[in-house]
């Protein structure tokens, strides 16, 4: 069929090859971020010190020096939490933006953060121990999204993704109102600061136990997304086209939402609400490898992990006090997002 200018070079091949070298590059960046984060802090440690402590951990010996104890019981859990939270939020964001066909969607869209926030605030308000607060946050996140899903399923004859988003906004607003009420009722000297810090997110108090608690849930959410990642592409064409292509769109969407919610709720439970990661990182990843979810998920995970480790490093080193990480992700994320808009490319690339 002549007449069409079809002489452009094969950009698909370019994208694939770019995608192929993006992964090692991002892996190197991640290693670098982890090493720097392990070395720096109130108690600086040399590279030798880090490798010595890790070697001792590997051989199963107990830490010997104070330095090693700081590294293994405080800093390492914090860095690992950063990896986990960043990777989970970025993957949930990337899958939601495709699923809801909207570049402004973040993992919070169905109310998981609002619900988790309500659970945690309730736990703080009742002066429960930390583990119970985290458990309530996790349950609150799951319950909120579950409620939104049930509401959306009850509404028939409308675009199901639109109904889900509207349901998420409404239920999220309700949870926000309940949080505000609890803040007013809370003890202003003891509970209110704890609530405020929790809602701004922090990895400061993360220890090994939290990580071993959240890790299985994150993996349980991540594995289906990785396995289904080619098929998830089809959902981004909209329900009708997906069904005509042979995909049970409603069922696949339910699985994807469940997986993303499980991941997000479990990391929000240990880190508090950290915004912007799930919104910005997917855009950067798409700029590098294109929208094909099959190639998009691994770089998004790596990038989210490095980003959060580095921002957390910033949070604990730029000031004498610990800056809540949610404030920093917003300060970094918002101008970056504006820059994306300003570049004026069609939102998705």
């Amino acid at each position, binding site marked *: 069929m002549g007449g069409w200018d*079809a002489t452009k070079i094969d950009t*698909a*091949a*370019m*994208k694939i090859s770019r995608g192929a070298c993006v992964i090692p590059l991002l892996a190197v960046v991640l290693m670098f971020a982890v090493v720097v984060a392990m070395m720096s802090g109130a108690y600086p440690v040399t590279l030798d010190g880090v490798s010595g402590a890790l070697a001792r951990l590997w051989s199963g010996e107990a830490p010997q020096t104070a330095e090693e104890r700081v590294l293994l019981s405080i800093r390492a859990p914090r860095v690992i939490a950063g990896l986990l939270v960043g990777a989970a939020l970025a993957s949930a964001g990337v899958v939601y933006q495709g699923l809801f066909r909207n570049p402004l969607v973040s993992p919070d869209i169905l109310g998981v953060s609002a619900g988790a926030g309500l659970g945690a605030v309730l736990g703080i308000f009742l002066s429960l121990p930390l583990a119970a607060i985290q458990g309530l946050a996790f349950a609150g996140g799951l319950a909120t999204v579950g409620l939104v899903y049930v509401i959306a399923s009850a509404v028939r004859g409308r675009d199901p993704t639109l109904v889900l988003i509207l349901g998420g906004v409404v239920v999220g607003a309700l949870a926000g109102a309940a949080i505000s009420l609890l803040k007013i009722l809370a003890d202003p000297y003891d509970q209110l600061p704890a609530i405020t810090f929790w809602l701004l997110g922090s990895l400061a108090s993360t220890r090994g136990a939290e990580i071993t608690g959240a890790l299985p849930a994150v993996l349980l959410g991540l594995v289906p997304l990785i396995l289904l990642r080619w098929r998830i592409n089809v959902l981004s064409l909209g329900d009708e*086209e997906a069904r*005509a292509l*042979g995909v049970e769109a409603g069922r696949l969407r339910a699985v994807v939402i469940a997986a993303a919610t499980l991941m997000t709720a479990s990391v929000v439970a240990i880190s508090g609400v950290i915004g912007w990661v799930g919104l910005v990182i997917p855009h950067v990843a798409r700029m590098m490898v*294109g929208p094909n979810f099959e190639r998009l998920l691994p770089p998004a995970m790596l990038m989210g992990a490095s980003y959060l480790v580095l921002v957390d490093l910033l949070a604990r080193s730029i000031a004498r006090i610990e800056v809540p990480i949610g404030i920093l992700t917003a300060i970094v994320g918002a101008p970056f997002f504006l820059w994306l808009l300003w570049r004026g490319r069609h939102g*998705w690339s």
Partner: protein
Amino acid sequence: MLIEAQALSFGYPEHLVGHEASLAIGAGDVMCLLGPNGCGKTTLFRTMLGLLPPQGGRVLIGSDDVGRLSRRDIARRVAYVPQAQAALFPYTALDLVLMGRVAHRGLFSAPTGEDIAIAQRALTDLGIGALAGRDVTRLSGGQRQLVIVARALAQAAPLIVMDEPTANLDFGNQVRVLSEIRRLAERGIGVVLSTHDPDHAFAVGTRVALMHQGTIVASGQPTAVLTAERLQEVYGVEVAVEPLRDGRTICAPFYNARQHHEPDHGSFEHGADAGGRIGSTPRHREGEGGH
């Protein structure tokens, strides 16, 4: 028969769009569905594809009721080319065509080398092999339409349903898409398409169904169905339908004549009147294909 609609009522429980539609399409058929805006062509297609439940009658794909088939089974038997819409994601053309292979692969699979070869061949067959690596957001409307047709080819179904495949295309691209449809039929693929242009039905249709206010008022050979009187009745404008010397037929509207008023787009209940007004012709004449 690849697909058969039997006395099909379609639409929504609270709003019936059409009823008593009967169609049958076999291998190598090109069935053109003609009718004014809003007469229910898209709703009929969606019902035939099992995307909407029938409100009466039934749809058979192969010999199975559409309601009993999984989405995967339907997709392996019927491919769908929906009405053209703007591309949202900058997928490459090849990535988009590969999505036609989803029904042939397992739940957790990624496209295989064979899938990539099939997708590339589908693009090449439509003369757009060189576009494989281009972002679909950067293609012209006509190119994108052909990419979607290529996706339907990659789906490797014996039947393709196309909803206004020539809408929004320039003249040359319309001719290209229609030529492709003809070639598909020569390869034994059944095609159902809706169009607004009677000339398209004359050009590629082996059979035509003319729809008006939710009912199929006539179906059969293009030249038998698309008479000047019937087109006038359905569209409310005066036309001449003339045979050309080489055996083709064309439809030419009169632009200066005082046009009939808009045909009655009243409520569905008046559909029978519309059929009645067509007068001397039987309201629904099923073509030679039969059931």
